[in-house]
């Protein structure tokens, strides 16, 4: 804070002001006023300040921070804007004694401005009028400026001083002829069954002011604190409404509701004497919060129900607050609290049992928290709290129940850190779903643990697969790979999976063999299948070794023929192929020979085999080598309709014209017979 020139002792008075979100201090030193902010101190002079002021005794900023009032030692009051740019009015009260308090008293949107000054036993309201209003105070009092007036507290009383609202003034001013006043009068006369009611009503209607009259009565009712007066004004409004065609009902209805709420909270048991304007400014939500803070739960709930607020914002929220309070009652047993809460809350939508449980846990009541969590339907809320409370096993079963695997994982990792390995595995063992999820996790993150898990469960089949995988992924050296396979084979035997065990032993044999082949012949053999190893050997001219391998691994004859056929054709070793085809009778027939030669575009070789194809596939073979004429002959000889059509579909161009005719003739003949 900067220095204030000439400030030796405490300032005679000071106040805080707020402009454009910046806080200032206004401070009086003798006849001078200074405005301070965090950096500077500047002397200010209120415009139009009367002369002769030697010190300021009081200053007051209005509720809205817009206006400022200064009380000087001459009994003179200056009123102006807080910016100190404009004077609104001034007043001389001729009392030089320093007042105890000075506060602004105004109403939002009202043009009237007034300041209330209090001395020991005297209260004066001053404003833009030559005369002030004086009141006598019976006791020591304290003033509190509020939104729309001033509260005056003493040891035994609580009063509210405010500017009379326009509507009330219009209606209750003596001899008022305002429409609202006339309507109120009309209604009273109506109740007395006097014809004057009609006269008053007519008077309003003639001026076309009935809607304003109703509106005034509704508004004035809002500002009344005494229920009887509220009622009589509302009755007048309701009476006036009967003579109007289209008067929207909501303002009337809403006012009735608001007044009922206001009357309820103004009751001395509750003691929240809000004015209508304050209530509106505050909003119902804030009012409910205040009731909740005062633990007035039943009233709050009644208000919610009466106003039909949505459950989530209304009743549920209050019940949740109630429950949070309830869990703090240490003298009640966990059982009783949990039951009481559940009885009240049931499945009320929007109530978070986990929030309540968290509160209970916060108060050190873990058992209660767990009981409450039983009622929580959302596992996503339930589980993390259980974990926080170190009830991991319970959390695990809740997570599993929910089917949400992410939750299960979360608990698992938690458990893993919390428990020692043995206990952790035991826990898993009792939860198959968790176990399989954890296995998945290990597969990607911790391979070794996976092995331990299989071991623990005596799951030899999976253990075998694990080692098989390791023989491909983890091991580079051939010895290591074979060792992994040996482990796999052992596991497969234990799993009574003879087939897999044998196949694994074969693979070990094959790996060693391939290694030897690579050393002796060069080239790449490792990780080829048995089939491909034999093929590779034939392709590199190692026919003997190929034969040996095929025998060692007992490759079935048919497949071996296919294998050789394909390999020799790939080599285009036609001589060897022919020799092979004559080595004994082909177990796969000779059509494959024709096909493979044609695939290599060797019609010459293909024709050699076509003649050896058995009768069933002869036509197909002949067509493949392009001998349509002979194919036709065979088909006709077979008297096979399907074969004849097949040949016919191959008859293209002029050259086959004769053949086509031949078939057609044969067909015709066949049909004759």
């Amino acid at each position, binding site marked *: 804070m900067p220095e204030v020139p000439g400030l030796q002792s405490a300032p005679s008075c000071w106040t805080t002001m707020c402009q454009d979100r910046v806080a200032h201090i206004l401070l009086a030193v003798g006849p001078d006023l200074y405005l301070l902010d965090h950096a500077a101190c500047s002397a200010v002079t209120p415009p139009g300040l009367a002369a002769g002021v030697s010190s300021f005794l009081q200053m007051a900023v209005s509720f809205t921070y817009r206006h400022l009032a200064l009380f000087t030692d001459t009994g003179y009051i200056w009123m102006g804007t807080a910016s100190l740019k404009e004077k609104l009015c001034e007043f001389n009260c001729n009392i030089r004694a320093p007042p105890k308090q000075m506060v602004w008293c105004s109403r939002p949107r009202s043009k009237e401005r007034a300041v209330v000054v209090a001395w020991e036993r005297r209260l004066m309201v001053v404003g833009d009028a030559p005369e002030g209003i004086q009141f006598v105070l019976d006791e020591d009092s304290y003033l509190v400026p509020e939104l729309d007036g001033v509260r005056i507290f003493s040891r035994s009383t609580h009063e509210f001083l405010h500017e009379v609202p326009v509507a009330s003034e219009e209606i209750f001013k003596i001899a008022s002829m305002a429409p609202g006043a006339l309507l109120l009068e009309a209604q009273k006369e109506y109740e007395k069954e006097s014809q004057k009611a009609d006269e008053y009503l007519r008077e309003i209607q003639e001026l076309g002011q009935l809607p304003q009259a109703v509106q005034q009565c509704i508004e004035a009712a809002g500002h009344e604190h005494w229920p009887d007066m509220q009622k009589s004004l509302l009755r007048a409004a309701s009476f006036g409404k009967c003579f109007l065609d289209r008067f929207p009902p909501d303002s009337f209805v809403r006012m009735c509701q608001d007044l009922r709420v206001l009357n309820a909270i103004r009751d001395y048991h509750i003691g929240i004497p809000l004015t209508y304007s304050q209530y509106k400014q505050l909003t119902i939500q804030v009012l409910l919060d205040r009731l909740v803070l005062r633990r007035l739960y039943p009233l709050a709930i009644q208000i919610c129900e009466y106003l039909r607020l949505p*459950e*989530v914002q209304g009743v549920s929220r209050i019940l949740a607050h109630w429950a949070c309070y309830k869990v703090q009652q240490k003298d009640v047993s966990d059982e009783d609290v949990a039951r009481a809460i559940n009885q009240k809350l049931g*499945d009320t*939508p*929007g109530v978070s049992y986990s929030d309540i449980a968290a509160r209970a846990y916060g108060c050190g009541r873990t058992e209660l928290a767990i009981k409450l969590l039983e009622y929580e*339907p*959302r596992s996503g809320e339930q589980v*993390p709290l259980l974990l926080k409370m170190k009830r991991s096993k319970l959390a695990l079963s809740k997570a599993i129940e*929910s*089917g*949400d*695997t*992410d*939750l299960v*994982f*979360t608990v698992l*990792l938690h458990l893993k850190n919390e428990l020692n390995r043995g206990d952790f595995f035991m826990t898993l063992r009792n939860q*198959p*779903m968790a176990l*399989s*999820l954890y*296995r*998945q996790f290990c597969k*990607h*993150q911790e391979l070794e643990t996976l092995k331990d898990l299989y071991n623990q*469960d*005596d*799951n*030899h*089949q*999976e253990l075998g*697969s694990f080692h*098989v*995988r390791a023989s*491909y992924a983890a091991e580079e050296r051939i010895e290591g790979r074979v060792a992994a396979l040996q482990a796999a084979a052992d596991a497969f035997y234990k*799993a009574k999976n003879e*087939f*897999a065990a044998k*196949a*694994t032993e*074969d*693979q070990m044999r*094959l790996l060693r063999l391939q290694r030897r082949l690579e050393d002796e012949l060069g080239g790449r053999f490792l*990780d*080829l*299948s*048995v*089939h*491909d190893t034999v093929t590779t050997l034939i392709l590199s001219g190692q026919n003997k070794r190929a034969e040996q391998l095929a025998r060692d*691994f007992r*490759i*079935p004859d*048919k*497949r071996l023929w*296919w*294998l050789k056929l*394909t390999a020799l054709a790939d080599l285009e070793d036609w001589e060897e192929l022919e020799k092979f085809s004559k080595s004994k009778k082909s177990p*796969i027939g000779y059509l494959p020979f024709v096909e493979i030669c044609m695939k290599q575009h060797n019609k010459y070789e293909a024709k050699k085999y076509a003649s050896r194809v058995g009768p069933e596939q002869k036509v197909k073979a002949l067509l493949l080598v392009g001998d349509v004429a002979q194919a036709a002959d065979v088909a006709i000889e077979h008297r096979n309709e399907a074969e004849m059509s097949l040949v016919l579909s191959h008859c293209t161009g002029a050259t086959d014209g004769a053949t086509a005719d031949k078939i057609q003739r044969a067909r015709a003949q066949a049909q004759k017979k």
Partner: protein
Amino acid sequence: MAAHLSYGRVNLNVLREAVRRELREFLDKCAGSKAIVWDEYLTGPFGLIAQYSLLKEHEVEKMFTLKGSRLPAADVKNIIFVVRPRLELMDIIAENVLSEDRRGPARDFHILFVPRRSLLCEQRLKDLGVLGSFIHREEYSLDLIPFDGDLLSMESEGAFKECYLESDQTSLYHAAKGLMTLQALYGTIPQIFGKGECARVRNGRRVPPDPMFCFQQVANMMIRMKREFTGSQNSIFPVFDNLLLLDRNVDLLTPLATQLTYEGLIDEIYGIQNSYVKLPPEKFAPKKQGDGGKDLPTEAKKLQLNSAEELYAEIRDKNFNAVGSVLSKKAKVISAAFEERHNAKTVGEIKQFVSQLPHMQAARGSLANHTSIAELIKDVTTSEDFFDKLTVEQEFMSGIDTDKVNSYIEDCIAQKHPLIKVLRLVCLQSVCNSGLKQKVLDYYKREILQTYGYEHILTLYNLEKAGLLKPQTGGRNTYPTVRKTLRLWMDDVNEQNPTDISYVYSGYAPLSVRLAQLLSRPGWRSIEEVLRILPGPHFEERQPLPTGLQKKPGRWRYRICHRHH
């Protein structure tokens, strides 16, 4: 844009709009220009609900694929990672964030988890020290994606594998969540029927099926979730009358057989991914004269296949043998329409003709595309090998020679045909024989290992674990009973104007379709014996509706089926 989604009996655009809205809301939370870093797997499914234009409208300026080291340079305010909740992806993200250049302009990071936010992943990010770098961490529950007017898909291709090989039922949880979303939009589904187990594998052995298990999975999760969602009492009149939950395990046969509809064959031959297919480009070269074929496109032709395309909607589900005639008829209609221009004499007539031109040209383009595709497919289906394979499949499905080694399969192995083809046939034979005789099974397995390599011992074990391949136990083949009762094999199939679903496989009627048919009429009570043979329990559950939303009993009322708990 997605009008075809609203043509069905249920307007699926409602769902599509709901998921799009959710996406827009998230994008708007990250104010300013953005770049999206994609988990590559998700781009396909996302493409079905939001094109780039939508992202662009919300200031997405750049898109990258998620990969290690540093992020590519981009002058944007926000970086959004759109990822599946997987640990390995978290590691990559952390690497990206940590190698961010501190000297460059500060950028905001966000994560959108699809379909579920994960505590596990967030913990990992925390361990890696980057969790605090993310401003928004949210989830985008893209569970059921509107696929076509009558089809929703989770696009979760690993679901069966996860459930049966890894005992990981995450996908079931997502399915239940997706169904909850569906009910929130379309009303509570009053009746749920189901069939199938999700057998737990313990110690490598199958434990006896737990009748409540499937329940506990999808149906029970739904009922549980309903409790979580109370508060928003569902007051929508139910659009769906029934929900039928079928475990894939109940019908392993159908996906093994070769599909024979037009769409099915496109999928068999070229593979349809997220409704897109990539085709060899040669057939689709622009036919312009004078080009001399020098700029043949080398990149695969990518086409989207859905019912938004009028012609495709008409032929997609036809047996391929019936497609040719439709195409030639269409060709005639279109060329006749173009000929119309000669008849247009008055200005009015010409104007009308011109106004129809865009539609006609689109139709002509579509016809040209499908004619090319049909030609490509025909090359395959007329091949001898295709015919042989189909013959074997059909023999198996109609119960011929399923108990001995098949020589065609032997030849396929000997000639090293693609392994997947061999495995499909062997598994098909196994399913049609309630498992293979130990000798036959071992023979096939040995042949496969010798030919394709020993490493496939793991492949074969996985097939056995999933029940696709198994030794016959108990000695009785139950498939013939199932086949006869459910009429799975139909001899008289009309491929051109079908009256029975068996036309889709030219003889075989998909088991799951038969189950649905029988459920609607006369009810499952009539097939109790078969239901006992098929794996897993069957169940029925009613979900109470709020008063006022009950439907009057109509002809779609089913009787309660047997329930054993």
